[in-house]
């Protein structure tokens, strides 16, 4: 068993990154021209990394499965990006952002990585402003901020409800600048199918050209995986339809350990499921919890009447509403972290208080905010004795300015105007904190193979705070990897171009071709989605918001069954050498079917509740924290890093002990 070396630099936490940068090896400009780097994925992490590395002089090949680099799923992030700028003079600092993130992650993240993230966060904002990213500004022309869950300062920068889009287009424009210069060779509509290992080092990838179906070999001195998360293992999630685990999973099967696969983020505010045809779920940004109040009726009769369509939310008097987050968590109210808010919604709905036909929805209500903003606007506009209608009209305009696109999105999907009727929301799978295990340099256990952004496990512990995913993606891509990759590549200045005719490439290519042929020649009866939907249901029911030993054991058996049936009975039409979307899906679902089992194994191994991982057997049974997650720091303050041993059910566990020198482990209370 190999040991996990996280390579955390010595020294005080606030000096580690600066010292590390000052001491690691770098590659001289003339030598960078002799080095090739492959970047897979062009979201915030990949786009930023590819652009930055090309600016530095490396030869970069960037890959994405979408038809353009601009469409990576980072584009859908809504709410914002955190940075410790303290522009609002509310006591924010690098330390506070670090502390909030470690606490928010329920003390399951690596301190040194999180501190570095907080440290570079301010640079990200400066970088994006310099690129022309249109952040929200106030009338003085300065950058505006708002609050997100789990914190008590306003440190979130935003661009209406489309922050991810604007940040991604910033990274994409930087990337396209390098494409125009010829410093990046862009391969869109290409999917990475495998990583190629030569003499123990990652030296290239096998990719499929999704238009022609051609299987291609690409060699490089280092491979960066920036391929996002694996939330689509649940079939229904807020991820894009194409988001998948294939690149990360193939890396795992080639020797990269998978860290904390069971840590999944269930986002509390998503549009509820409407029927069996549902293909994906849509998030309503956490920023809405700045102004929206979450509630269900206090009485079961009212809840039933609403479900039967006999009453509307607006019929329930103020005193008959249960603002359960404000009741249970007075200090943070509606802005508790996501895991806490999601479980609280589930608890109310399980107890029979749900407010839509399926019983799986709670209200997110803006009427109080509309009135409050309306009054403020009336004052600003010097309207004396404004009527209630006028106040509501003014208030709606303010809410629309802040969240207009989200309200429109909601109305389109649900067919109900959220200005008139409180939104109905329910938790949905959104993000995965787990991912490929990486050291401080973002290198996986395979030398030369790096993982950035959501693809790695490193910064969010067991629960990610809102507006931190964008921060991590850009931090890794713009400010971490450009330094740390040089330390590895310093050995490669004399290596010369990687020969893709080597037997390792032959073998990897053959394996992928065989797999494709298996799918196409399999004369099964059911489409890929059929299996994916079944896998998703098992995962959601037994490895979702709440988990228990028996359920997880059942899930493992059920997943094995579905997997076996998948290989036997899946039907994939068409040919290998053409644009074949069913074939693309088949490969992705095959990998999800293995990953799902590992997630359950990891969840079963972790006999505690922490962050997004809630084991029903491990909850506080009495006292003021009754019902809250119960961590077991004595036995589980470690990263579970799983090694592939040739069979999905037989992964080998390695542990990286987490040491907390800066932050004292306490029960995470938001009361």
């Amino acid at each position: 068993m190999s040991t996990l070396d996280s390579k955390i630099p010595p020294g005080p936490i606030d000096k580690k990154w600066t010292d590390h940068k000052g001491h690691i090896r770098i590659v001289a400009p003339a030598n960078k021209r002799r080095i090739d780097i492959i970047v897979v994925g062009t979201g915030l992490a990949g786009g930023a990394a590819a652009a930055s590395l090309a600016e530095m002089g490396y030869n970069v090949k960037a890959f994405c499965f979408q038809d353009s680099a601009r469409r990576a799923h980072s584009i859908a992030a809504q709410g914002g990006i955190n940075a410790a700028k303290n522009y609002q003079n509310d006591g924010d600092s690098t330390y506070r952002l670090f502390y909030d993130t470690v606490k928010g992650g329920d003390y399951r993240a690596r301190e040194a990585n999180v501190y570095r993230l907080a440290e570079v966060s301010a640079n990200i904002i400066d970088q994006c402003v310099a690129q022309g990213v249109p952040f929200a500004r106030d009338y003085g022309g300065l950058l505006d901020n708002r609050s997100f869950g789990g914190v008590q300062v306003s440190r979130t920068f935003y661009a209406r409800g489309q922050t991810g889009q604007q940040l991604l287009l910033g990274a994409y424009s930087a990337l396209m600048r390098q494409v125009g210069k010829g410093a990046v060779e862009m391969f869109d509509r290409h999917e990475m199918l495998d990583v190629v290992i030569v003499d123990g080092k990652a030296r290239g990838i096998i990719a499929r050209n999704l238009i022609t179906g051609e299987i291609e070999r690409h060699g490089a001195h280092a491979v960066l995986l920036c391929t996002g998360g694996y939330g689509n293992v649940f079939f229904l999630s807020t991820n894009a339809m194409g988001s998948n685990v294939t690149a990360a999973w193939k890396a795992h099967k080639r020797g990269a350990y998978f860290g904390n696969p069971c840590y999944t983020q269930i986002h509390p505010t998503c549009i509820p499921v409407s029927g069996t045809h549902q293909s994906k779920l849509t998030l309503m940004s956490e920023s809405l919890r700045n102004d929206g109040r979450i509630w269900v009726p206090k009485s079961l009769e009212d809840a039933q009447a609403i479900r039967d369509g006999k009453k509307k939310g607006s019929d329930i008097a103020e005193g008959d509403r249960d603002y359960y987050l404000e009741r249970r968590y007075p200090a943070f109210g509606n802005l508790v972290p996501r895991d806490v808010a999601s479980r609280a919604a589930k608890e109310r709905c399980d107890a029979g208080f749900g407010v839509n036909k399926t019983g799986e929805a709670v209200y997110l209500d803006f009427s109080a905010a509309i009135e409050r903003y309306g009054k403020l606007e009336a004052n600003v506009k010097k309207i004396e004795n404004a009527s209630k209608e006028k106040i509501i009209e003014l208030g709606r305009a303010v809410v629309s300015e802040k969240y207009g696109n989200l309200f429109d999105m909601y109305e389109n999907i649900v067919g109900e105007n959220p200005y008139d009727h409180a939104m109905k929301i329910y938790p949905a799978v959104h993000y995965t904190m787990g991912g490929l295990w990486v050291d401080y340099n973002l290198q996986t256990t395979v030398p030369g193979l790096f993982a950035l952004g959501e693809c790695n496990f490193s910064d969010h512990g067991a629960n990610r705070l809102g507006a931190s995913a964008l921060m991590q993606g850009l931090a890794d891509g713009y400010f971490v990897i450009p330094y740390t990759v040089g330390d590895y590549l310093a050995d490669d200045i004399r290596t010369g171009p990687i020969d893709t005719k080597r037997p390792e490439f032959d073998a990897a290519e053959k394996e992928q071709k065989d797999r494709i042929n298996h799918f196409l020649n399999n004369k099964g009866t059911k489409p890929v989605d059929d299996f994916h939907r079944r896998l998703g249901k098992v995962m959601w029911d037994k490895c979702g918001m709440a988990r228990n030993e028996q359920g997880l054991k059942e899930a493992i058996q059920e997943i094995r069954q579905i997997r076996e049936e998948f290989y036997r009975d899946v039907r994939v039409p068409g040919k290998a050498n053409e644009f074949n979307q069913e074939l693309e899906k088949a490969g992705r679902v095959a990998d999800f079917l293995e990953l799902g089992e590992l997630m359950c194994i990891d969840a079963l191994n972790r006999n505690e509740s922490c962050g997004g991982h809630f084991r029903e057997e491990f909850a506080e049974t009495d006292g003021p924290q009754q019902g809250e997650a119960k961590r077991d720091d004595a036995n589980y303050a470690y990263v579970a890093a799983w090694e592939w041993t040739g069979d999905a059910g037989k992964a080998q566990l390695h542990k990286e002990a987490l040491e907390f020198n800066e932050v004292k482990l306490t029960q995470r209370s938001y009361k």
Partner: protein
Amino acid sequence: MKLNLKIWRQKGPNDKGKIVDYPVSDVSEDMSFLEMLDVLNDDLVRKGEDPIAFDHDCREGICGSCSLFINGEAHGPGKGITTCQLHMRRFKDGDTIHVEPWRSAAFPVIRDLAVSRAAFDRIQAAGGFVSVNTSGNLVDGNAVPIPKDDADKAFDAATCIGCGACVATCPNGSAMLFTAAKVSQLSLFPQGKPERKRRALAMVEQMDKEGFGNCSNTGACEIECPKNISLEHIARLNREYLAATVTKE
């Protein structure tokens, strides 16, 4: 509800292509248009036929992948939405619905309803950026205040998702609204001003090279744009381009 779909099928760029009829039933009004196609594709696969290829990804109107011409309208009926945000409640039982890909010489069909919009990437690469390298030592984000009105206007332009509806709907197949959105966004910001002339010239030159048509101000693009991007930005591009042309050295 029951619907009669008439869908464009084309095996590849060189295939002639034709409209094929697909009657569908049990369509729920809560489905999105793409979910309705998912159900049809599921059926086709079970029957051993080739499913219909179409681009899609985020399914929440932001990635810009989906691109269907539905009953003669880019992204179908409804204003300010993409195809993935179009829900079946906008149709009624018994409707016949025509579904075609984007039609433009600069957007060749890949298969069925999927087209290549790589030309947009090349226009962007020609100048749709601020020439600034990644650096941890930039000026502070608040060092240069930007008037809120400029920031808001730039944001409106920046919401372009690059879907290509403007091109598909334009009688001339012009990409002016797409190009204008980027030029306009960056020319409104102090950070983008130093290279504004070079940018306007380079992006327009690339746009012409790709074979997009000329703009004759029909305004169709603005009407069909899922992000409601205004013609005002085309006017700004024209000003930028003119200024750049007359002062060119």
